[in-house]
């Protein structure tokens, strides 16, 4: 399966969800790095909302708008300090209608 094919499908999936994005206040940040660790790199595949992507310099970037706040990336990369993870402000973020 090609990466772009996968991406398209996740975006379609996320499109069904409701979000209240806290514009300008991302709740997750990736620390600047030269080369990602294995865990950080894995997030480009493992994040269920595909928020993490490789840029053309081989570094991992995040766009947290589609984040479902599952916490997987925190488990894998917070202890090493590679990412900074917080909940969105109260009321913001994903709004599950069914869950």
């Amino acid at each position, binding site marked *: *399966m090609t990466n772009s094919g*996968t991406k398209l*499908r*996740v975006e379609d*999936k*996320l499109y*069904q*969800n409701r979000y*209240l994005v806290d514009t300008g206040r991302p709740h997750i940040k990736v620390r600047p790095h030269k080369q990602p660790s*294995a*865990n950080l*790199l*894995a997030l480009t*595949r*493992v994040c*269920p*909302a*595909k928020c993490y992507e490789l840029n053309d310099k081989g570094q991992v970037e995040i766009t947290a708008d589609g984040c*479902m*706040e*599952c*916490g*997987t990336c*925190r*488990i*894998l990369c*917070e*202890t090493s300090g590679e990412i900074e993870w*917080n*909940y*969105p*402000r*109260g*009321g913001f*973020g*994903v*709004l*599950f*209608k*069914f*869950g």
Partner: protein
Amino acid sequence: MQMIKEEFDAIVIGAGMSGNAAAYTMASDGLKVLQLERGEYPGSKNVQGAIMYANMLEKIVPDFRDDAPLERHLVEQRLWVMDETSHTGIHYRSDDFNEVKPNRYTIIRAQFDKWFSRRVRGAGATVLCETTVTELVRDAKGKVIGVRTDRAGGAIYADVVVLAEGVCGLLGTRGGLRKMLKPEAVALAVKEMHFLPEEVIEQRFGVKGSEGCVIEAIGTISHGMAGLGFLYTNKESISLGIGCLVSDFAAKMESPYALLDALKNHPSIRPLIAGSEVKEYAAHLIPEGGYKAIPQLFGDGWVVVGDAAQLNNAVHREGSNLAMTSGRIAAEAIIQVKRRNDPMTKRNLALYKTMLDKSFVVKDLRKYKDMPALLHTNARNFFTTYPLLMSQAAQNFMRVDGTPKIEKEKATTAAFIKARSRLGLVSDAIRLALAWR
């Protein structure tokens, strides 16, 4: 905000299963309770399969059947072992489950949590949503005396804080109450809601009225990772999902949505969801560390309940009932300490653990204490090799092709030994039996 000046008997962080059980129990007893929830409404952040176990809710809200949003009561459970093209399985269906007070129901969490929260308010608790608790407040001696939130207005104080913050448990880990979860002690699950007309669900699963059927499956669907797929029938929808250990996802760099798509396209699943309209895609963690992962449960001015305390029985796929029960028991312990006019110290709150240890929650988790490690270290055998062998054996048994039966049996046995060696098979069987004991 004016109310921040007030002081509460208890602050409950989180309005999920455990938080609602705790807040309801304490408020019903007349305690002054403040419950804080970061979601727009209770349930807006919560994900479950979801099977709800009636007995544990009944102990908290005896008349819940009057108005709780229940989807279907379960009369049939299917346990499947799957390979790429087939499933082998056990089905258990019984008319005994058509009782006046059924034992298990499917629910939709966002709706269920809203209902539970209405009951919590009805019992007299103050519930504030859209409020993320950012920090625990402590006195000079380290006792937890309140919380700070992301709303303007400073700290809010209470005699005791109940951490019902769910599996991520940010406050507890950042406040040094417990360690960060390990990737091998937690699963990531993704799930979709497939909508279909009620009659279609009834026909496809052979159920009528509010009867329901659930399927749980292991096998090649988890690509060699320790994982489980599930399909639960609701009134007008099907919950379909799959979860695997986070450590396995990271090591194999697998995409959860690719796994879910493969499951949807499996020839045994596809016809069951054909023509459905997908209305939501969700992801959530599930604690899988079992008994050995249970952290410190109480301290000066605080207790922790539910998923935040890792109270989840991965073998039986139970979590919400352990969450509700631990919330209720923590509340009952707090009520007792309060009645004696004793302070909410670590020593006095130890009562919660004493009571919890006597309940099914800790007893069940202790029974399976070696299971997580076994399944984690042997994922490939238990989740791929054995399922493949089982389906081969089943096909060997069913297919009539002129091969003498005795040769078929020999071939099946040989396949098992080739894949895992005689010693490997025996040792896996023994270890599984020991972990099950």
